[in-house]
């Protein structure tokens, strides 16, 4: 990392911003902050002379945090999120707050109060989507204006845009990275993730952020982290599973051919590859769209205009409190609030919400019985004949043109919900998962048991080398 390279990245931001709408807020001080690193004796810090983008749902005290929503327009947090503090302490400079789907609700990067983000792998006039919800984070890395970016992944929001932009996108195990200061969408699923153009940067940033945080009640304790380390082993030959439920006839032939080539390479290099079946994966979408809107309802109830961001002229309309302010939520957010409240109503609570919770446990148990690394949290019996990691595609298709995506979604919103079919099961189980670029605008996912992040990262080095061989 050099000052020259860092400044050159920052200097390109205005041009990239004009064409691709990557940031909601650009830090105009980034260049001067980079230049002052030596004066501040910070040049030996691990992330000195690196530039990062931070998704706009991760709070920063020196820049606005809006979740790409009018309802948080102009909101300034009084504190930095823990992950932001850790990055700043490590010497990085934050280039700005990255665009996203409002409150993380979307998979294309088109639901933002600040307009859609376009994919820097393509010409701006093609208006190809980046995927979402961490659209700006992925685009900033793909455009090369930052070294890495923070995103959040609730059902695939790091991995899908990583796939569409040919970047690495890592969703660590749930609880690894602190959520303190991450504006919640669905707290049982929300996970801070990282984008980078190379695995060395990814590894470095992850090791800096991988810390217990007492301010996050779901942060994995030191004791659990110690257990993970003592259970991890270096293996020369991996047992790799290919789950058949992640295969769809509709995927492009190029995806299938690439996946086949990688598996053959892995076998040639002495790894054992097994077919795996996890039938409950088919339930993941229905479980996800029952649980996540229900959690969102609770998290978004705080936006009444009294404490945060935007407030309408009046607090009441037709006898309902806060409606004028809450009308500022975008249409997709409103849709999910309505669905969430439907699921939580007494008539459907048992049939929908509790049933989905039970099916989620079943899904976790099914993954537990397929991995040989134990699930320390569940305490389920370990399958000694299980696999170490699994591989699948990340997306079902190439990214589409903005108008096409909008039309498809207007036709039926479920058309976009199914984009996450390959990413949601791991979110529901909290599994560490990495998207590795496998071609132009598509990637493959490697994932492992909860807590086995470092073995997964090691495996990704090898997979990446085989992709490029």
């Amino acid at each position, binding site marked *: 990392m050099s000052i020259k390279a860092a400044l050159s990245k920052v200097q390109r931001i205005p041009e990239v911003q004009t064409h691709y709408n990557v940031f909601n807020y650009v830090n105009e001080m980034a260049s001067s902050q980079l230049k002052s690193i030596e004066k501040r004796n910070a040049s030996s810090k691990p992330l000195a002379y690196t530039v990062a983008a931070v998704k706009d749902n991760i709070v920063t005290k020196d820049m606005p945090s809006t979740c790409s929503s009018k309802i948080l327009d102009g909101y300034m947090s009084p504190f930095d999120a823990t992950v932001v503090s850790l990055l700043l302490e490590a010497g990085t400079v934050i280039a700005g707050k990255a665009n996203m789907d409002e409150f993380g609700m979307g998979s294309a990067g088109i639901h933002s109060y600040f307009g859609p983000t376009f994919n820097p792998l393509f010409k701006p006039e093609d208006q190809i989507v980046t995927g979402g919800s961490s659209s700006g984070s992925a685009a900033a890395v793909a455009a090369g204006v930052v070294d890495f970016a923070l995103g959040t992944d609730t059902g695939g929001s790091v991995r899908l845009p990583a796939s569409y932009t040919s970047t690495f996108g890592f969703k660590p195990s749930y609880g690894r990275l602190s959520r303190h200061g991450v504006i919640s969408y669905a707290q049982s699923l929300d996970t801070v993730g990282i984008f980078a153009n190379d695995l060395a940067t990814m590894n470095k940033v992850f090791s800096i952020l991988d810390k217990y945080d007492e301010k996050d009640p779901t942060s994995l304790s030191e004791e659990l982290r110690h257990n993970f380390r003592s259970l991890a082993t270096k293996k020369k030959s991996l047992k790799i599973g290919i789950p058949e439920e992640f295969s769809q006839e509709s995927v492009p032939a190029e995806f299938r051919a690439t996946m086949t080539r990688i598996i*053959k390479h892995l076998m040639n290099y002495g790894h054992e590859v097994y077919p795996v079946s996890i039938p409950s994966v088919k339930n993941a979408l*229905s479980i996800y769209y029952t649980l996540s809107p229900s959690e969102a309802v609770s998290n978004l109830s705080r936006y009444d205009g009294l404490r945060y961001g935007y407030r309408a002229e009046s607090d009441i309309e037709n006898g309902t409190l806060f409606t004028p302010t809450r009308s500022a939520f975008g249409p997709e957010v409103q849709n999910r609030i309505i669905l969430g409240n439907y699921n939580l109503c007494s008539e459907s609570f048992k049939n929908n919400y509790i049933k989905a919770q039970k099916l989620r446990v079943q899904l976790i148990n099914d993954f537990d019985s397929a991995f040989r690394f134990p699930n320390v949290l569940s305490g389920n019996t370990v399958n000694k004949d299980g696999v170490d990691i699994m591989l699948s595609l990340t997306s079902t298709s190439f990214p589409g043109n903005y108008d096409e995506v909008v039309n498809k979604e207007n036709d*039926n919103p479920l058309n976009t919900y199914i984009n996450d079919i390959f990413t949601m099961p791991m979110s529901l189980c909290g599994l560490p998962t990495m998207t590795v670029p496998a071609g132009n605008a598509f990637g493959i996912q490697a994932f492992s048991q909860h807590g086995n992040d470092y073995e997964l990262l090691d495996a990704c080095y090898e997979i990446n080398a085989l992709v490029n061989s």
Partner: protein
Amino acid sequence: MLPALRRQFVVTVRLFSGKSSQKVVGSSIGPKFTSDKEVEEFLGKSTWNVRDYVPTSVDQKLIPSEETVVKLLKISGLPIENIDQIQVRLANQLSFINRLHSLPVDEDINPNHARIIERNPKGLDYKSLMDRVKNQEKSQALGELSGSWDSTKSAAVKLHGFFILKEGLLKGRN
């Protein structure tokens, strides 16, 4: 499951405790791939189609009543408008998530285990609870600062520690 592999898959099957006629099929691992041809065959087939989850037309039976939609909008704090569109959208979403109703599940499962946290954490005993209370400190990082919020600030009439709150926090509420 692929027919060629079915014979040798090691399948986990859990029986329902409540409804004995239904069973839940768990995960399974097939025999190791030994040739490129096996890999190609495996990846060339799919066992289900996610498009089947997207309805081609709206199921009229699933359209919620206008009364239900108005109630949902009120508890959501959202404007009561576009009711027809919301009814159709909800019906589409419900066709998708109502699939859950017919799925078999082990009734003995504790739904609280759905959270990705330790299922059986160590209990907090009396002594450790009291120690925590004793050692608890205000966290500046969490904004726990004495005097940082004046709860009677919006009261225009204050005297000797007494106040009259006329204005309230809400705007437009007579």
